[in-house]
């Protein structure tokens, strides 16, 4: 087989993998939709609780995650241009921002639990912890994946396989940012102001 034909086959496999990953992300949307629906239904089942959240704190979380989504995009652009050092810098920044976001989220959970507002207190809080916690679990997975990719790129540079993985990783990261926009709007903004 000629190299041109091999490259064409490789290209086709890559686009199939990316499509498969896209289908996974869309089914994950359905998972989050069911948690959002549960939250919306249980929102009234509260023993006092909607006044618990600090909006400036959550705005900071949102802006941090949004910025990390942007830097992940820049990292992917660098990967397309095979600029290894820039890939490491941008995905490194993304990872730090992601860690910062996760720390903020854990701090909030910890504070709520200490004040006696854990998931056991009301239906509203159960739904809140499940929805936001599932998002946090995805973020954690993304961070582990990102650290593995940083190691791989450091070792082997931006190969075709690494580029494919980085493309999927940044898709995943943008998806988590979109889910967070809805958590920010539905849980925090609508929850606190109505």
């Amino acid at each position, binding site marked *: 087989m000629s190299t041109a034909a091999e490259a064409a086959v490789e290209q086709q496999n890559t686009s199939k993998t990316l499509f498969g990953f896209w289908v996974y992300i869309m089914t994950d949307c359905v998972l989050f939709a069911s948690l959002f629906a549960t939250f919306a*239904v249980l929102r009234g089942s509260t023993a006092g609780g909607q006044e618990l959240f600090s909006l400036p704190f959550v705005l900071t979380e949102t802006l941090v995650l949004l910025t990390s989504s942007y830097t992940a995009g820049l990292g992917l652009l660098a990967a397309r241009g095979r600029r290894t050092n820039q890939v490491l810098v941008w995905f490194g920044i993304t990872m730090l921002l992601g860690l910062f976001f996760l720390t903020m989220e854990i701090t909030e959970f910890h504070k709520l639990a200490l004040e006696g507002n854990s998931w056991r207190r009301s239906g509203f809080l159960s739904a809140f912890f499940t929805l936001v916690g599932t998002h946090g679990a995805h973020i954690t997975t993304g961070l582990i994946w990102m650290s593995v990719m940083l190691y791989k790129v450091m070792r082997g540079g931006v190969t075709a396989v690494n580029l494919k993985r980085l493309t999927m990783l940044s898709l995943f990261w943008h998806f988590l940012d979109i889910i967070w926009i809805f958590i920010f709007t*539905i849980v925090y903004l609508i929850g606190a102001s109505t």
Partner: protein
Amino acid sequence: MSKRDEAAHGSLKSYTWGFGLSIVFTLAAYLLAHGRTDGGWSLIYLLAVLAIIQLFVQLVFFLHLGRESRPRWNLTVFGFAFMVVAILVFGSLWIMKNLSYGHQHLPSSQVIVKDEGYQP
């Protein structure tokens, strides 16, 4: 990088536009809701619209949806997922709203009187 490639994968310009627009919509939603505790349905609708605009901003500028070459399988799957999500969320809310209507802590005889005008 060819022109078509750039369209399908995005460029620095498209990412920066997406980032800037997302910040604008996030801050707008925040300022609308901040410090209010008396918002009604109009505020909820407004915030929901802002979130959905931001969803499409990010889908287009970050995920490059709709800019792939034909056949557009990604877009097809997205459309299907969107439909499932809409049915799931609005269906649940609708059903539960009906359920809580029939669940007003009245003795069942009174519910029958109220709903069907039937007097035993």
